[in-house]
């Protein structure tokens, strides 16, 4: 996200807060370790992972991907609205983003319940330990992201952000895009490959 000046030009600076970007980098690093660990463990237990992946629902994973991408899209649109000093419009767009994100949560919880009904849980084997750990950790980030989005939406609706004071909004939006980006790596790794 870029800072829009009063004459309509963009200052080439890092959007949002520097602290948020370091936090995002830390989160990305942790998940990178999880993802690489998953791939390594799969190579050591190919048959177990093949059987485990056959128990998953790739269509549910695809729907979750589309939900998070679309949610991120509305958050991106909300920032365009903030650039135009339209706080209430930005808040509405974030609200839509959150409604779409709820689709992700519902599908994820349905996935979990369907696996539990099959007697599969975090203690079943290495595949399901990693599956539940990684996806649940990501789900927690989704929930935190929704709290952050709610906070910035409330502030935006009260016109507490403007063109010269938008870094908090940008930071919140950036966190949400990070959550989306993690899923676009997680989805093919766990559901597709």
């Amino acid at each position, binding site marked *: 996200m*870029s800072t829009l000046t009063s004459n309509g030009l963009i200052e*080439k600076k*890092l959007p949002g807060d520097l602290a948020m970007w370091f936090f995002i980098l830390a989160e990305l690093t942790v998940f990178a370790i999880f993802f690489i660990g998953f*791939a390594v463990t799969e190579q050591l237990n190919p048959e177990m992972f093949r059987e485990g992946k056959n128990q998953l629902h790739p269509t549910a994973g695809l729907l979750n991907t589309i939900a998070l991408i679309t949610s991120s899209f509305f958050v991106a649109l909300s920032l365009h609205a903030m650039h135009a000093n339209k706080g209430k419009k930005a808040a509405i767009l974030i609200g839509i983003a959150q409604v779409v994100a709820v689709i992700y949560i519902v599908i994820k919880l349905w996935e979990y319940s369907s696996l539990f009904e099959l007697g599969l849980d975090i203690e079943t084997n290495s595949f399901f330990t990693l599956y539940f750990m990684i996806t649940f950790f990501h789900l927690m980030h989704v929930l935190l992201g929704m709290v952050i989005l709610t906070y910035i939406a409330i502030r935006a609706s009260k016109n507490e952000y403007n063109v010269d004071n938008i870094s908090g909004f940008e930071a919140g939006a950036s966190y949400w895009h990070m959550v989306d980006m993690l899923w676009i790596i997680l989805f093919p790794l766990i559901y597709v490959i």
Partner: protein
Amino acid sequence: MSKETIQIPQGSIKRTVISWLLLIALSVMSIYMGLFIQNKSLFIISVLFIVFLKGQQIIDIFMELYHAPKKWRLLFLSYVVLLPLIICLVYLF
């Protein structure tokens, strides 16, 4: 850090919409790619390349790091280059 001033890209909302549609198309493509690519190694490389493409869209368009100082943009782009590359190497070797 010195600040550079650049013109607002024309149709930035339009670009966001195009990016969204591209992300969805790439997501659908990756899940059905297995129907068209029988070679396991080529399939893995293709799927992970799509991860890079999608990550680049999120970083440059949604996060708007395209307008950020170069070192930050390259840092985040390196994530969606190196991580899929490492995963690819784990699977292929």
